[in-house]
C-alpha cells in the first residue's frame, strides 16, 4: 500500500521532493519506511526516543524512533551522517528528564551494554556540596589579600584621624572572616550528616542547606573585590553612598559579640599608632 501511494504521488511530484512521516501505531513504521526507500524516498521523519504522536488521531501511539530508523538505514548501507551512540544517549537523557522509558528498542539495546547509571541523587547532592566547598577554599585563598588591605586601610584612616571609617573597614573585615568561618562549619556539618544518616530522610534539609550556601557564596563573591576596599576610604559622594550601604549590611548581619570584638581591635590599633 505504501508503495502504491508513493508511486501515485510521484507521478505528480518528483520523488526527491517527497518525505514520509510514519507513525508506529501498528508497529509497521520501519517496514513502511523501508518500502518508501525502495520507491526512491530519501527524507524520513522520525522523533528521538519516539517522543510525540498524534493528539488528534485516537489510538495513534507515537512517532517512530529516530534511533531505530538510523540503525536500519545504516544497516542497509545508507550514510545517515548521524552519530547513533550520541543520539541514543540524547534519547536516554530526554526520556529520563520526562520520566518515561525510551520508545526506541535500538536505544534500549545499545545502552544496556553501556555502564549502568551508578550515580544517585545523593551523589549529586554530595557533588553540589563539594563544589561549594571548593569555591569556599578558593575564596579563603583570595580573602587574605582583601583582609590585609582592610587592615592597612584601617591603620591609615586612624592616622588621618578618621575613626568612623577605620571602624567601617574593620567591621567589614570581621564580617568577611565570620562569613567564611560560618559557611565552612555549615558545610562540615552537612558533610558529616550526609555520611551518617539516611539521605532520603535528610534530602529537604540538605537541599535547603545547599541553597543557603549558594546565597552566601554569591555574597562572598561580591565581597572579594579589592577595589571595593579602597572605596571605604574615599570622600566622593559615590563612595560615601557605598559606605552607607556597607554599614547597613553590617548592621543587619553582625552579632553584638562581633561588634564588641571589632571595637577592641580598633582600640588596639589606636594604641599601636
Amino acid at each position, binding site marked *: 500500500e505504501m508503495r502504491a501511494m508513493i508511486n501515485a504521488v510521484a507521478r505528480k511530484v518528483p520523488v526527491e521532493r517527497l518525505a514520509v512521516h510514519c507513525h508506529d501505531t501498528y508497529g509497521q513504521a520501519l517496514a513502511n519506511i523501508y518500502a518508501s526507500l525502495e520507491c526512491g524516498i530519501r527524507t524520513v521523519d522520525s522523533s528521538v526516543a519516539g517522543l510525540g504522536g498524534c493528539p488528534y488521531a485516537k489510538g495513534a501511539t507515537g512517532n517512530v524512533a529516530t534511533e531505530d530508523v538510523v540503525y536500519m538505514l545504516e544497516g542497509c548501507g545508507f550514510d545517515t551522517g548521524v552519530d547513533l551512540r550520541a543520539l541514543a544517549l540524547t534519547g536516554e537523557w530526554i526520556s529520563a528528564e520526562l520520566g518515561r522509558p525510551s520508545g526506541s528498542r535500538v536505544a534500549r539495546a545499545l545502552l544496556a551494554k553501556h*555502564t549502568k547509571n551508578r550515580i544517585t541523587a545523593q551523589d*549529586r547532592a554530595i557533588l553540589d556540596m563539594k563544589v561549594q566547598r571548593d569555591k569556599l577554599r578558593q575564596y579563603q585563598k583570595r580573602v587574605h589579600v582583601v583582609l590585609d588591605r582592610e587592615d592597612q586601610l584601617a591603620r591609615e584612616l586612624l592616622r588621618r584621624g578618621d575613626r568612623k571609617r577605620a571602624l567601617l573597614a574593620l567591621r567589614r573585615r570581621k564580617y568577611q572572616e565570620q562569613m567564611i568561618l560560618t559557611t565552612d562549619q555549615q558545610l562540615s556539618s552537612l558533610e558529616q550528616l550526609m555520611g551518617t544518616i539516611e539521605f532520603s530522610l535528610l534530602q529537604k534539609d540538605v537541599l535547603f542547606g545547599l541553597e543557603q550556601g549558594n546565597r552566601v557564596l554569591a555574597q562572598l563573591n561580591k565581597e572579594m573585590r579589592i577595589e571595593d576596599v579602597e572605596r571605604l576610604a574615599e570622600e566622593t559622594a559615590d563612595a560615601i553612598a557605598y559606605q552607607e550601604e556597607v554599614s547597613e549590611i553590617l548592621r543587619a548581619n553582625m552579632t553584638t559579640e562581633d561588634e564588641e570584638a571589632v571595637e577592641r581591635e580598633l582600640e588596639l590599633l589606636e594604641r599601636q599608632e
Partner: protein
Amino acid sequence: MATGGGAGARFQLPEIHSFPPFFTRQPNEDTWKEQRRLWCDLVVAFCRHHRRSALAVAEAVNEPPFSNPRIRRALRVDTLREVVDELVSQGHAAWTGPKGSARDTCLVFWRKPEVWAAMLHQWAADRGLCNTVLTLYELANGDDTADQEFHGLDYATLRRSLEALQSQGRAQLFAGSSDEDLGVKIFT
C-alpha cells in the same frame, strides 16, 4: 614529579630550529614527512616542558617555538595545521572548538589521556577514594593531590582523561545542579 620544567630549566630547542627551511613546508613529500615528524616531536616536547596543552593556531605562529625571530622565520598557519592533524592521527592532540568549525584551537596531549586516566585511577585506589564523589577541582587543585603529577593539569585535558576512564567503564562523570562544575566517581 609534580614540578614541571617550566619554572627553572629553559626549553632546549633542537638544532634544526635554527635552520630556515625547517619553517617552510617542503614540497618533496618524503622530506615533508620527516620535517613534520620533527615538528610533531618538538610540539609535544615543548608542551610537556611548559605543561601547556591549549594551542590556538593563529596566535601560536607568532611565538616560539613556531616562530624564530633570530632567523626571521615563522611557520605558516596552514603548515601548523598539517602538523596538528598528524598529531591528532597519532592520538597526541585533538581539535577543540565547535564541530565542523575551522581548525583553530587544539589540545596537545603531551601525555596521552589514557595514561593520565591510569594515574588518576591508581591515586583513587591508593587513597581509598573509589566509589566516592570527587570534584574536578579537587583532582586538579586539591591539597590531597599536591604531590601528584596531574596536580595543576588543565581542565580540558583532565576531563578528556576522565572520559577515557569512563569509556573503559571505570568511572562516571556527572554534574550536580550546575553544568559547569563536574564531578566524577571512580570505580574499583
